[in-house]
């Protein structure tokens, strides 16, 4: 049961939404699908006076140009999954959305932008968005601005939104990159322990220019350029154990929680990276 007297706002435009968030600061939060916020209020973990509901803002757009797809803040995982196949790299988002734990109840309610704003290290979206080089569209009292995903995720559960700002949409590129996603979790109900999103831009099929972004292994996603591991042909030049060692070295401060200690995450980071690459290869 929500313990505080909570004022529910459903503003009709972004200016009003931004003004509410600016006015109430820490005492207000944005509610999208509510899959995280509502249970945390119910359990008394968060204490708010105001919630700003996105439902009247018309942020349910899922639209594309020839270069990118724009996903509004109210677009749920179910919307992403029921849309026609995303072109190019953007497909990564659909692949990851299909593996969201919690069944239809969560996928019908939960949103891509909500997950990004929550910035739980043990979740799919932050890593996927950083991997894609997504653009995060914010709106605040001073109007709109756009940040690359890599700058949006500041720390565990902390994003680069200023007072009064809300995430209104993300744009992901539809470049014809090959992608591969690998999520490692302990059991079906588990949050991800480590995720890897491979993005392979070389049209000739080598790993030249490839990146793999690790999620859930540290407070914020780690986007790794594979160049140090490649030979002149853009092929992986080192054995698996060496890849793992190199990857582990890129995770100086692994995320640690009751499901898996930090050293475990660091150890399996290389494994999930290699498996994501393998999936990308299979997508050739």
């Amino acid at each position: 049961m929500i313990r505080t007297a909570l004022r529910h706002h459903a503003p009709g435009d972004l200016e009003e939404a931004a003004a509410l968030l600016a006015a109430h600061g820490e005492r207000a939060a944005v509610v999208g699908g509510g899959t995280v916020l509502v249970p945390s209020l119910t359990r008394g973990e968060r204490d708010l006076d105001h919630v700003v509901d996105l439902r009247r803002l018309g942020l349910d757009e899922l639209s594309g140009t020839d270069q990118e797809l724009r996903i509004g803040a109210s677009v749920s995982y179910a919307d992403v999954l029921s849309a026609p196949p995303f072109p190019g790299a953007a497909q990564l988002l659909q692949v990851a959305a299909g593996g969201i734990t919690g069944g239809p109840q969560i996928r019908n309610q939960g949103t891509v932008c909500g997950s990004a704003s929550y910035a739980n290290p043990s979740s799919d979206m932050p890593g996927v968005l950083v991997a894609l080089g997504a653009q995060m569209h914010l709106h605040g009292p001073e109007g709109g601005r756009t940040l690359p995903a890599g700058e949006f995720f500041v720390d565990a559960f902390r994003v680069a939104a200023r007072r009064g700002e809300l995430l209104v949409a993300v744009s992901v590129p539809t470049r014809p990159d090959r992608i591969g996603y690998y999520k490692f979790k302990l059991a079906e109900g588990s949050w991800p322990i480590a995720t890897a999103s491979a993005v392979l831009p070389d049209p000739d099929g080598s790993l030249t220019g490839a990146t793999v972004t690790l999620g859930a292994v540290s407070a914020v996603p780690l986007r790794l350029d594979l160049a140090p591991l490649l030979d002149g042909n853009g092929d992986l030049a080192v054995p698996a154990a060496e890849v793992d060692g190199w990857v582990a070295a890129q995770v100086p401060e692994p995320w640690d929680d009751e499901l898996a200690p930090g050293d475990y995450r660091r150890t399996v980071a290389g494994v999930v990276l290699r498996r994501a690459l393998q999936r990308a290869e299979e997508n050739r």
Partner: protein
Amino acid sequence: MTLTPEAPATAAGSPVGRSVRRKDGDLILTGHGAYLDDIEFPGSVLHAALLRSPHPAARILRMDTSAAQARPGVRVVLTGAEAAAATQPIPHFYNPAMVGGRSTDFHPLAVDTVHYAGEPVAAVVAESLHEAQAALRDIVVDYETLPFVLDAEQALAPEAPRVFEGWEDNAVARLPFMEGDATAALAGAPHTLTGEISIQRYQTTPMETRGYVAAWSPDGRLTMHASTQNPHPLRSHLAQVFGIGEHQVRVVATRLGGGFGHKFHSYPEEALVALLARRAGAPVKWLESREESLLVGAREYLHRFEVGFDAEGTILALQDRILANVGALGSSGGWAQAFVAGLTVPGPYKITHYDVEVAVVATHKAPWNGARGFGKESATLMMERVVDLVAQRLRMDPAEVRRRNLIPADAMPYWTAMKHIDSGEYHAVLEEVLEAADYEGQRAEQTTARAHGRLLGIGIGFELAPEGADLAGSLVRGHDTATVRIDRTGGATVLTGVTSPGSGNETGIAQMVAAELGIGVDDVRVVQGDTDLCPYGYGNFSSRSLTVGGAAAVLAARDVRATLAQAGAHLLKTRVEDCSFADGHLIDTASGQRLPLPEVVNAVMTLGGVGLGIDESQLESTRTYSPENVHLVPDEAGRVSVYPSYAYSAHVATVEVDRETGKVTVLSYTGVHDCGTVINPMFVRGQFLGAIAMGIGGALWEESVYGADGRLRSDSLKRYLVPRAPDLPWIETRSRETPSPFALLGVKGGGESGVSGAIGAIANAVNDALLPLGVHVHEMPLSAPRVLRALTDQRIRP
């Protein structure tokens, strides 16, 4: 008197032994089965919320409730001191003093000292749950935090902080279980090996959590609707706590969405909710949140064992030192699982020299309550690993070592120090599971897989499940009572002292009564859980609902049937012995004449005692059934046995370990079990499947993790991983029926079988997978991080 199994009078067409659909199954599936929170109570019901201590050990210096009291909607704010002054201490479900252990008094709220993080320290009643919960933060508590201890071994150190004031140390009890001379037999054994294995704290996560609604009527009578497994004992306990007559208390156990021992009574919240209702002068409701529910512990044990054996794999002696971390004890009786853990050793094996000691240790974790398996899972895990370690040392097949050590069928009934095992065909069930799982074929596949570097493991688990406990001196006993009445339409009503945790035992009891009276299962109504209606009984525990609750109903139905037969014989001018009952009719088997049952009932009720040649005009009987095969008075060898019935099962699991991540995937699973005569194969299979799922979950994922601050970190189902369907393989089951010679109808308990065997089988399978690498993991659960650590340690070994 020894009751011999007797086929029901109407064996042909009898519903016993059939997979009859559950009586309330359609209601539940369509959302019409009301659970506690669905019940509409007359008048306005107030809501309670509990303030729980954030500290594992602290003194409460001061509590200021004035701000909470002043909040809108708040009716009552109660402190521990006020609660203790208004009540007697909560009776222990099983008092450790019963076995010579240390004990202490427990109250509805912590009084001066907090013993675990999560212990309730104050309560609020308000007009809405929202207002009640909101008021909690306005209660100001000054705590003086105290040193605390979470680990059982550390808790036994002389300098460890004491959980309870005045205790010399933190040992609740030290319980010996022994037979023969283990020390001498170990010294003389050709081979010995030692080891250590631990099982983690974890619980049963019933889908429906606990809850209570209490109301006092103007005449001073207390009515409590409770999501509980023991309505009558709860009534006794509430009467004692409030110092009122037991007849002044009515407890109604509501439909349960799972029990598993989690809903045994003697929690502090039961008396607390009743007290709050009394203070508020209105009905009060409290529902356990999932976070609160996850506080309840069980199953945290460490075994240190030594086993002696010969070159043929015969186990000659076993020593086991068990540490049980039972948390801050509490009145709820969970600690008694540690007793059962010791009692269960050496399980299904014929080991004549053993020496077990269980140290039951209090720590600053939340208290235990019952958890399906009730300690047997821990004993089974240790025994099953021991057998596999012997096999490994001798390079024998683990199945063969079991063949050489299982108690042979011709040795039944079989005495150990604490068990008189009724019956069983262990070797036959072992062979059956090996055959059903294609064990030999799987071993061949494993050889190929290993050659390809795969870590494939096959594990056998053999479980002995003592059931139906009759612990004299505790608040629950082994016997139970039922009333059967037949009405003028030919239908029967059964009032029973046993309750259903949601397993469908009401349907099983209906089948048993229907078989006796020759009527349809749908013509039998089973009433459970209401202390105003049902005879005194012990509710649901130790898998005894059909063995004693069903048996009592059968005895009562036979009384009714005897009266009907007498009347029928008179009406049809035939002999009583020729009267049988089927299809809702009384049938004269000599002449083939049939009388519809309602006619016979009407004749008895209108003419009984007058013109039917019978004295009886009442078609109702109440009978108590006490389990046979309980031996509470030591025999000349000093042996006692509190469990009357011994179900058992054999399991084969095949797993694959991901070498790179340590993650275990269960590839296949086969279980064969025997709980004697089966009343409803579908329900028995359902229980077996659920128990196996619970066993696999505990073996691989479920764990109540505490932080260094002494708080439970696994406080939601995202942090406490219960298996979901995709985590489990298809589970192949078979069953065998070896009737108990000591039980009416030969029935044995079937509600827990499978948890322990599954834990043993999975632990053996994972360790079998790791065998080529020369490592083992003896720390449960076998989660990916733990398994990978073992693999990594192996890699860095020179």
